[in-house]
């Protein structure tokens, strides 16, 4: 209790800390938002609740990590590690897109028409498999890549802003923007949105929904993969960290609702910041608990609101 009070006190004693916490929260939150956006996409379009979301993220991280560590590109093209690390985001996007497509064809396509619980369990099985395969391939150590950039310091060194993190956030933002534009303008994007609204009508109008589903799922995996490649250059990855990102993605999508991209991004950043505040005040050991409790609070809030609505209807 004393600890909590003194931690709260710090926030007021050094107001600049708030800025630091929010910055950190926004940075990690932007990556949560990416994973959550992919989840909202598959959830909204094909009603699949993908518990393997976090494992796609981690797998993307390992794709990039592996690319850099084999040093194959470096020697072939004569480029620096930095270049390959940045390129890794693109490679992870493509490779994970392909893996996502395979997962769709093997598993997901069979669960789309099934009841809600089925997709949850099937993707859970997928998550277990992916985590363990990564463990066998890459070992259970935490891994990270280091971008050779400086760190900017503000406010007496109290706020540190590694350029690598800035690059990561910018890439996340760029990716999100690209996906939004794609969904708005391209033919496929329109087809996806149409399918999300009413798949039967879309089918009647000549949209190949099976193709749309496959594309959506592999797009989701690709987005996650890119997010993972950004994570590996800013934070660390480990085969069993997937659940962390899955939980966050579910919290965000539950909070923001489906088909609401600005909402997903706002919720992502908000949850990032809330977690950082929570771990500052209660201690870093409560981080996961805070995320999950937020989920419960949001669910209960929605429930209460729904009840009130129902009463009004009566």
């Amino acid at each position, binding site marked *: 209790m004393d600890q909590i009070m003194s931690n709260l006190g710090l926030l007021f004693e050094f107001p600049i800390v708030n800025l630091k916490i929010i910055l950190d929260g926004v940075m990690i939150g932007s990556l949560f938002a990416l994973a959550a956006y992919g989840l909202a996409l598959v959830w909204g379009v094909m009603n699949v609740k993908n518990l393997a979301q976090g494992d796609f993220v981690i797998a993307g991280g390992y794709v990039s990590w592996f690319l850099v560590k084999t040093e194959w590109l470096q020697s072939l093209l004569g480029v620096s590690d930095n270049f390959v690390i940045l390129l890794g985001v693109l490679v992870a996007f493509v490779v994970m897109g392909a893996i996502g497509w395979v997962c769709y064809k093997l598993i997901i396509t069979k669960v789309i028409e099934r009841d*809600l619980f089925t997709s949850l*369990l*099937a993707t859970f099985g997928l998550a277990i*498999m992916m985590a363990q395969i990564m463990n*066998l391939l890459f070992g259970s150590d935490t891994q990270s890549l280091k971008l050779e950039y400086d760190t900017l310091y503000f406010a007496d060194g109290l706020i540190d802003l590694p350029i690598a993190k800035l690059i990561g956030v910018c890439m996340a933002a760029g990716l999100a923007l690209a996906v939004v534009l794609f969904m708005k303008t391209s033919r496929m994007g329109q087809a996806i949105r149409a399918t999300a609204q009413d798949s039967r009508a879309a089918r009647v109008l000549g949209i190949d929904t099976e193709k749309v589903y496959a594309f959506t799922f592999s797009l989701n995996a690709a987005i996650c993969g890119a997010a993972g490649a950004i994570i590996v250059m800013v934070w660390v990855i480990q085969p069993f960290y997937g659940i962390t990102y899955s939980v966050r993605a579910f919290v965000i999508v539950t909070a923001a609702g489906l088909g609401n991209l600005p909402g997903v991004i706002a919720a992502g950043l908000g949850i990032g910041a809330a977690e950082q505040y929570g771990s500052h005040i209660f201690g870093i*050991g409560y981080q996961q608990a805070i995320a999950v409790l937020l989920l*419960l609070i949001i669910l209960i809030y929605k429930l209460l609101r729904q009840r009130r609505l129902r009463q009004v209807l009566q």
Partner: protein
Amino acid sequence: MSAKKLVLYGTLLALTIAAPFLFPNFKTQLATLWLMIIVALSWDMTGGQMGYNSLGNIFFYGTGMYVAAVVTIGIVYDVGEYTQASGGGIYVWTWGQYFAGMALGTLAAGLFCALCAFLIGWITFGLRGPYFAIGTLGVAIAAGELVSNWEWVGGGQGISMPNYPGDFDQFKLVIYYLYAVLGVILFMFVAWLYQTRFGAAINAIRDDEGKAEAMGIHTLRYKLITWAMSAFFVGAAGAISAFQLIHFEPLETAYQTINLGIFMVVCVLLGGKGTLWGPVVGAVMFQVFKEATWNYFLGWQWVALGALIVVVVVFFQDGFMGWLRYKRPEWFGIRVESKDAATEGAS
């Protein structure tokens, strides 16, 4: 009950009693099998029979473990002192204290978990479909994280139960029979329950909750009572587990959401959801599969398990009993209308 059935049940009961003597080296695996049967059967009470797929039943398992530990330690020593990271004195239990702890702890665990089910269910039963699953999973994860930060019960270092005062082989027999007795009671209980009006009511909730409510069934009350009964058994099983494992810690053992928490669901799906025998058959199949892969595919055991889950969920969701019902409808006691049932099954 027909003579045939009587013979069948008699044989199974005899087998249950004799099992630890027939396979003396496998007492622990057999005990674990019973644990799986208990959690699967109690999961099916809400999941299969009532249509509420909880992913958070592991909460009752973990809570049961901790309640049992706190009661058993608390009646003899000071819990906070006992769990200090720096160790301290040497703690011993006499026969009387041990069994008093065991009896009180198991009972308290069951009752406390039933109470928890009432409280949690009162909130979460408003959630439908996947939100109920995610919500209950959230409760279990959050509970694990909070307990792991609670120093009084040992926090992340876990908590140690007293050692059994007697011989170890005897201890394992005691554990086995505790599970077996609990399992048999649970089985008889649900077999009876599903034939009563109560069973019909929860099946009605599964089939169409709106209609059930319109017919005058107080659905929330039925849901709460069912979940509380299920929680009682899971909590008691958790308590026995605590005594069996001796040392356990919150995240990996007590609130092991992604192990036992999901395994119990897979067991039920494997055997057949919403059937009496399904969870039992599924638990046996699952346990055999698990022991086999852990023995022969070391390293790949989790991959195999993940693959099993995917395959079962995607391709065989009706489970073993569903398959059997389809193949041999006459075995399912639909003697009078067997022709109709057969044609229905075929259509």
